[in-house]
């Protein structure tokens, strides 16, 4: 069984949990006390991921680290439909996976500063995050105009959407107001209405009422 080294308040762990559940995979969640225990820097965890970052998965004795890499690994190994990581659109998907990594470096950093008292330049983290939000908002605005609902012009989300979603949805915990980004807000709402979506703390504390068909 897949073991996920997991932390409930981590957006990067959220995206892995989300895909595992979408793919109907059984997994064991091994909780790592990220804050205040800093267990991800402990020798036990550094054996699994020498970078000391969550999440990491272990399957059959092999570890895979990095949230985006895990999404690629799971979709490639287990998604028979090919929807989550479409073969003919890998370049576009990787573009959004890399974008998600930049969200981790900005919005997630601002959230670590505000919620877990990390020492870092929070002004820069927020302004970097807002710059990224403007870019993705513009992208989604044009996508909506062309009749598309997701980051790729496909009738379903991909791991690109999964990778970008959590830290955008958690932006207000890092002091970044999402009100100016109306296309992003609509995209988030679509994501939260996906079947099987389970919010994590700070995301949407209550289940969303279902839209009438």
């Amino acid at each position, binding site marked *: 069984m897949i073991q996920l080294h997991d932390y409930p308040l981590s957006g990067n762990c959220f995206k892995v949990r989300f895909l595992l559940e979408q793919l109907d995979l059984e997994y064991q969640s091994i909780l790592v006390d990220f804050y205040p225990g800093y267990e991800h820097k402990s020798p036990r965890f550094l054996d699994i991921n020498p970078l000391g970052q969550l999440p990491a998965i272990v399957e059959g004795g092999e570890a895979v680290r990095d949230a985006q890499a895990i999404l690629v690994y799971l979709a490639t190994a287990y998604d028979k439909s090919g929807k989550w990581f479409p073969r003919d659109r890998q370049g576009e998907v990787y573009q959004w996976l890399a974008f998600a990594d930049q969200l981790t470096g900005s919005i997630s950093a601002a959230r670590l500063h505000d919620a877990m008292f990390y020492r870092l330049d929070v002004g820069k983290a927020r302004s970097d995050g807002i710059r990224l939000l*403007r870019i993705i908002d513009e992208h989604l*605005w044009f996508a*909506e105009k062309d009749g598309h609902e997701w980051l790729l012009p496909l009738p379903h989300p991909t791991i690109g959407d999964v990778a970008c979603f959590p830290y955008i949805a958690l932006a207000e915990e890092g002091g970044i107001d999402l009100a*100016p980004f109306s296309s992003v807000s609509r995209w988030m709402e679509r994501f939260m209405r996906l079947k099987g979506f389970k919010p994590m703390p700070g995301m949407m504390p209550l289940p969303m*009422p279902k839209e009438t068909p």
Partner: protein
Amino acid sequence: MTSYVVALEKDVRDFSIVRSMMGDKPLVIWRGASGAINVWLDRCPHRSVRLSAGRNMGGYLEGVYHGWKFDESGKVTQVPALQGRPSEDITATVYSTAVADGFVWASEEECAPSGSAGEPCYPVHIAAPVDQVRLHVDASANHLTPWGIDRTMVYPTGDPVQRRAELSAIRRRLEES
């Protein structure tokens, strides 16, 4: 007396919440079960948390913090901490609203949309960074564009390539500011 375009009607969907601005006032916009669109100040009268963080349950809006339920007139019809009793002397701040030309309009006084929204003569304030009020309508695309510069009314042309270039230029200017 000024009426403001605060959203596109088609963006205000059932069981959904839209955030916007009227001048410097944050707005929560929601469509109720009656089909009417409600535009309120985005502040809970209880503890000032934004109402847009709550849920649109159709017949009522539910605050995220203490679960107060507001009916479409803005009245508090249920307070969980009062064993579900109403508190009808308390209301949300409700603005006068109208729908015209596919836009949702609101006003602090009597809302009176007039003329065509396609003409650049109405202030269009749409969810904006506080320091950068948006004044944009992309009439041809039937969308409020999400990027704006204070006091600039931009009507991108019908050519999609050129429109994209114009809007990207606006974004770059915003980034530099």
